[in-house]
């Protein structure tokens, strides 16, 4: 793999994303809502032990959970399938580039603009907090933004798995939207339902939560922001008491990293090694 080629391909992908009207719409919506959340949040009070930057970051968690997985899954899912469908992938591969370079270039080229829009949303909100004289929890605020980037990377990897196996972009988008619903909307309900139906113990419920990257992001963000882990409910209390706060954060970060690495590796190997042909 040539780093130079990866950077050229990533650069093209980034420029295309930044020109894409859906991506622009997503970024603008995310930023507007981030500022809106900040403006309607109460002044200097402390909620659940979080104030200033921390409280703003906590408010942004739900926004991140709604927007970031959706854009990461959709852009990831159409990245290869779209080019395969319109024939540009085969033309690109007729040039001196490898499929591995194309794959890594696409991953980076999509992740960078998503991280850019996350940074923009958090940045605007951060400026808002500073203008209102807020203080404290600034490192936690930055950490939450980084966790959002990790969430984007993990769901982008999942989106790429969808893309590698899809011949048509429309089908890939359908699967991506279903996965978004599954991870975001049905995630909590699924855990609760499974816990009740199968009479799961608290340990199993915690393990079940780790199977959903969005859930992992949510727990990790709350733990990063709040010293009062009780707000996570009995599962959070169990996890913190068993592994310690730092231990849980380490486990959650590791799980998010695995949610990035495993789908990425699976899609990479399938696309560049197992499916050598693009006929």
């Amino acid at each position, binding site marked *: 793999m040539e780093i130079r*080629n990866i950077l*050229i*391909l990533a650069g*093209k992908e980034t420029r*295309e994303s930044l020109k894409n009207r859906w991506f622009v719409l997503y970024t603008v919506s995310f930023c507007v809502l981030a500022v809106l959340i900040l403006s309607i949040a109460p002044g200097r009070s402390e909620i659940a032990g979080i104030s200033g930057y921390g409280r703003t970051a906590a408010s942004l968690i739900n926004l991140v959970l709604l927007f970031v997985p959706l854009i990461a899954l959709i852009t990831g899912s159409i990245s290869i399938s779209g080019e395969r469908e*319109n*024939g*540009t992938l*085969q*033309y690109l*591969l*007729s*040039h*001196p*580039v*490898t499929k591995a370079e194309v794959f890594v270039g696409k991953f980076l080229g999509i992740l960078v603009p998503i991280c850019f829009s996350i940074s923009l949303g958090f940045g605007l909100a951060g400026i808002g907090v500073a203008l209102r004289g807020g203080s404290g929890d600034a490192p936690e605020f930055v950490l939450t933004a980084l966790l959002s980037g990790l969430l984007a990377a993990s769901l982008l990897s999942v989106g790429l798995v969808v893309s590698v196996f899809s011949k048509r972009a429309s089908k890939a988008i359908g699967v991506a939207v279903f996965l978004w619903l599954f991870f975001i909307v049905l995630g909590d309900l699924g855990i609760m339902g499974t816990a009740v139906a199968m009479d799961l113990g608290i340990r199993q419920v915690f393990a079940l939560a780790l199977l959903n990257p969005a859930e992992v992001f949510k727990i990790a963000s709350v733990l990063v922001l709040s010293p009062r882990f009780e707000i996570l409910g009995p599962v959070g209390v169990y996890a913190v008491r068993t592994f310690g706060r730092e231990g849980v954060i380490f486990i959650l970060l590791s799980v998010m990293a695995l949610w990035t690495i495993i789908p990425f590796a699976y899609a990479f190997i399938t696309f560049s090694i197992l499916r*050598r*042909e*693009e*006929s």
Partner: protein
Amino acid sequence: MIEIKNVTKSFGKLKAVDSASFRVEKGEAVSLLGSNGAGKSTLIKCILGLLDYTGDITVGGLRVKERPKEAKSLIGYLPQEPLFYDMRTLDIVRFFARLRKADEGRPAEVLDKVGLAEHSSKYASELSGGMRQRLSFAIALLSEPMFLILDEPTSNLDAHARAEFLRLIKDYKENGKTVIFSSHRLDEVDYLADRAVLMKDGRVVMDEEPHALRRKLGLGTKMNIAVPDEYVTMAASALSSAGIIVHGKNGRGFLVEVKGGDSLHPLRELMSMDIPVLGFSVEEPTMENILEGAARDGN
């Protein structure tokens, strides 16, 4: 040199390319001739390493299976239907120039060469079919490749754009470059190729110089010649005596068949006898005629 040895490519039970073997020497222009589904495009994709195959392909001494990226860097490829990203023309060329490690000034140079310099700020979607083909040709020329592979380069072009495009390829060939192009038109083969490789059902059924191919397959060029009514009988008998096959009268003229590719022979005969020619049209053999000829020849 490009060498294709016993290459077979199957899609399920269908053998799209079946034990194809031939070589293309440096500076040669070789046409892959065949009807749709003959295996021309599949073979080209195998040369580019886009498809797996059995057998062996070497490009400039590099085995495609072992060093596909290096082999591709020696090839400029023009697909049958050029497809581009939704970018400005110059940006598309710049993108591929960076991938092909071409000089910085090369994009503007190749766009100028193919006559697209004034369209460089247009989006690819705003270009006509002929312009898109030329854009694809410009990209293929970026790294001044040793080999140019063109997959039915004129299939989507009108007559004017086709003539212009063939001239561009001819110029490239005359600079001593190696060209492989697929086609189902014998006139293009005559114009550009040193050799024609005839493919049928994935197999190479003939590998000959174009005039030898015509001779072997008994292919003639048909010509409608219009002369004034009072000269029709005289002209027909004059041409028959000159050994030209006269198929029959039609309207103000007659249909003749010329073997061996010298299409001007009947016109010269008529002019030598001071018979005025009002007009003429040429009908090249169709792919069906060629394949019928190949079948007669035992292929």
